[in-house]
Each structure stands twice: as C-alpha cells, then as structure tokens.
C-alpha cells in the first residue's frame, strides 16, 4: 500500500496485515461471470439453500468492483481473450477460482476448441474438482481461498505471471 515498504516488517505493519487480511477474507466479491454448466451451480450457491452471503460474498456485475473471478465452465479459445480481459479489469488484490474440471484442466473435453485449463491464461489460486462440482464443493473452495487470503500481506505484490 505504500507505507509498509518504508517501515519494513515490524509490529505495526504485521498487525495491520492481520487486520486487513481478516477484512479481505470476509468480503470477497466475485464477478458475475458464468460460462457453462458450473455457472448454474454457482448461481445455486447464491440461492436460498446454500446462501453465499453468509461468507461475505456478494456478486458484482462489474469486474471493476470485484476481487474474485470464478471461472465456471469450459473456456473456449474464442472466449479466452475475454476471460483474460475480465481478469485484467479487476483491481488488485484479486483471486481466481477454477471451478470444475473443464476450467482446471480441460476435463472431459480434450478437443480443438477448449483451452486445456484456465491456468494457461490467468493464474489460479484454488482448483475445485467435479463435473460440475456440488455447491458444497464451491463453498469448501471459498473457505480454502479464505485461508489463503488470511496469510496474505499488504505488501505490493505483482500478480504471478504465466510463463508460457
């Protein structure tokens, strides 16, 4: 954020880290970005039985207001530039969940038109297996992401680059 780069690691910055990470953990705002089958399960998680909101997740229609992108479904080569663009439009810090087999590795569809895993175009934090994953699996993935965010720092970090 700026100030901690001058102060270094001391009691003030590390305490601040904890507070901010705790805040970030409970206010992950995912972008409304659905691709295929998993998008329906993603909607289900937002609905009454599973209730996303109790984890602090609120769907935002604009990527500018979001800090999580759930890649829910197969990414075709035609769609890949748009996925990258939505990701690039999101402000830092940002996280990515690859939901389902198709987004994680291409899954069922080892064909000419499908990107074999969204991690070829954007860096992924959490992979959720399943075709499609159950809503419970997505919630588990969210809690895993929260664990990861909890350990984060305020220090300015460039998002990991894909070297491919």
């Amino acid at each position, binding site marked *: 954020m700026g100030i901690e780069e001058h102060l270094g690691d001391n009691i003030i910055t590390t305490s601040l880290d904890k507070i901010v990470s705790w805040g970030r953990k409970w206010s992950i705002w995912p972008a*409304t*970005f*659905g*691709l*295929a*089958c998993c*998008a*329906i*399960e993603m*909607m*289900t998680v937002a*609905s*009454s*039985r599973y209730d996303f909101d109790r984890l602090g997740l609120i769907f935002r*229609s604009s*990527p500018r207001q979001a800090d999580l992108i759930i890649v829910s*479904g*197969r990414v*075709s080569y*035609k*769609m890949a530039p*748009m996925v990258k663009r*939505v990701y690039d439009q999101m402000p830092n810090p940002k996280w990515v969940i690859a939901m389902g087999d198709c987004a994680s590795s291409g899954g*069922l*569809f080892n*064909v*000419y*038109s*499908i990107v074999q895993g969204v991690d070829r175009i954007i860096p992924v934090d959490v992979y959720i297996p399943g*075709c*499609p994953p*159950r809503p419970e699996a997505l919630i588990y993935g969210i809690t895993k992401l929260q664990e990861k965010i909890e350990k984060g720092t305020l220090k300015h970090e460039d998002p990991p680059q894909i070297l491919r």
Partner: protein
Amino acid sequence: MFEYKDFLIETDKFALNIGPSHPATHGVLRVLVQLDGEIVVNAEPIIGYLHTSMEKYAEFRTYHQAETITDRMDYVSGASNNLGYILAVEKLCGVKAPKRAEYVRVILAELTRISSHLVWLATHAVDLGALTEFLYCFRERELILDIIETVTGARMTPSFYRVGGLAMDAHKDFFDKTRSFIKIFPEKISEYEALLTKNKIWLERTKNLGIISAEDAINFALTGPSLRGSGIKYDVRKANPYSSYEDFDFEIPTGETGDVYDRYLVRIEEMRQSLKIISQAVENVPEGEYLSYDEYPQYVIPPKKRALTTMEGMISLFKYGIEGIKPPKGEVYVSIENPRGELGFYMVSDGSAFPYRMRVRPPSFCNISALNIMVKGHMVADLIAIMGSVDILLGEVDR
C-alpha cells in the same frame, strides 16, 4: 422562419456491444446491437463462445460414453437430453425399453423440465429486477435435484439411461420423494405467480414486447414455449409421442399474442402440466424389469443383479464394457420435446462401436435466430427482457 423539422435532433446510428461477459445474456451470448437513439434497429447474435465440438467428440466415444456429452450440452435439463440421445440409439438398434423404464424416464424428464423452467423463471425475473423470485425458484429446484440425485446419483448430469432401459432400478425412496414433491409444488407455483402475474411492473415490462406472429414463428422454426406463446399448438409429446407419452393425459398450453408475457404464462402452465404427467406416471409405474436384456441381449447390458450372479451375465457386461454396442448400419432421426423446444438427434452408424456421425438439432440455436425480428423497434432495455424470454442456453447453441 423555422419549421418543425429544424428542431428535431438528427441522430446517427451507433453500435452497442452486449456480451459475451454480461450478467443478463445467460452465459456467453454476444449481441451486436445497432441503435438509433435508444431504439434497436438491428440485433445480431454472435455465437460460438462456448463451442465445445461435441458432435465431433461423440465420434470418438462409444454409444454409452457419448451419452455423457449430451448432459453438458443442455446443462439445465440433462435428463431430457439423455432421453433424446438414448431414444436415437435405441431406434438405431431397434431396441425398445420396458414399460417401467419408460415411465421412470418420463418422470425424470418432466422433473427436469420443471427445474429448467425454474432456472429460466429465476434468471429472467432477476434480469427484470425481481430478485425474490430467484430465491423462491431455486428453493424448489433444490428439491427436484434432490429427487434426481436419489435415483441417478448426480444433480445436473445424470446419464442414467442405458440402451434398452435404465442403469439401475428406481427404488421406493425415489417415488416417495416425488410424491411428496407433487403435494407441495402446486402451491409454490401459485406463490411465483402471486409475485409476478398481476404485478404492475412485470406487466409493464413484459406485455406487448417482443411479439412474434405465428407465421414468423413457423418460418423461423421456433419450437417449444417460444412457438406455443404465439398460439400454435405444437408439442412433440403430442404430435409424435415417444417413451409412453401417449399414456398420459395433459394439455398443451398456448398463448395468444406471442409476446414476452405470453411465453411466461405458457411456461408457468407447462410446469403444472408436467406435474400432472409426473403424478400419473408415479401412480401407474408398472412393476417388472427395468432393462430389456431378455429380448435384445446383443444390444442391452444385463441388469446389475444378473451380471453379478450369473456367468453369462458377467461375460456380457464385460463385453459391453470393453467393446461397446454395435448397432447395424443405418441412420435415424429422433426428436423429443426438450424444455426449450424440439431437440433432435440424427445418428449415423457404420456398424462399428462408435457413432459415425451425431448431429444435434438444438432448440436454442433455432430460437435465437428469431431474436432479431423480436427486438426490432424496441428499447434497448427491453432487449434484455426479450432475450430472456426466448430461454437461450449457450451450451446448446454452440455445442
């Protein structure tokens, strides 16, 4: 002296791009809209953002493996898509499923129709600003998915049918759960209707919008609720009954004007009719075999119990697992009534264990072609309402 026309502002047409990542396009549809002020002059759907080459992919899978692809094609109504596919393969082989299997298939397909319409109603209502509807619809959708899960083991992608029957017998728990669902669901539909049907805002946003005449609807090859909303009584379940649909008593709801509101009413009424079919099917399910293995042992897998207790059953199950079924040479076309319209499968067999060609006639693909004439002359905000009312599913459009 000034004349009236001098005060008019001259506007140029301009292009607006909606999608492919837009919350109201129901997936990855991209629409290139040409606007004159706020009036839509031309709307061109650009598809292919979810192209998965499923038809080609099916050519490298055995007949039973290819069934799993049809789940992912229309992912909101998996059991319905499986039915179309498996009926096509059965016709290719000349196999007929036993009555019990057909009834269970009908129950699953109709449950899927209800759940698909619920997803449609939920998303359509959210697009038009009614968020409560979303929570209501998904509440009941979960009950349906629970029922499907008890018998098939999967929520959205069942792949439960086999050539000549079912993978397993439907047990008592499934029928009990379905019965209790039939009891509670009618009042839930009234609940949805109470929120929308006579709601002033809903009427303003849906009435006289996106009208498509009966003639245009036929010319654009619309099927399903989009066609019936225009007043044409065409339903594959009645016109060309498959899977014992002739045994059930149900009506085909139709609209009058063919606007967004009529399509909404048709779908609401269709849920009631589906429920009627389900209740008849649950009460009249015959006892007996769920696989017609005895009649067609060369195409149908043996029932699980026979495969595990008898020698020849074990051998034939192993043989189907290794080699797959080999239908005789030929080509067939089978169409069923999907929640979105007429879903057709055209299968060609060259006598090997893999389909030579699988061509799908997806209802959404044909329905989306009429989008342009539906939205012409309407406001850009109404485009969302019209797009939602056609009930497009991009997984099926692009395949």
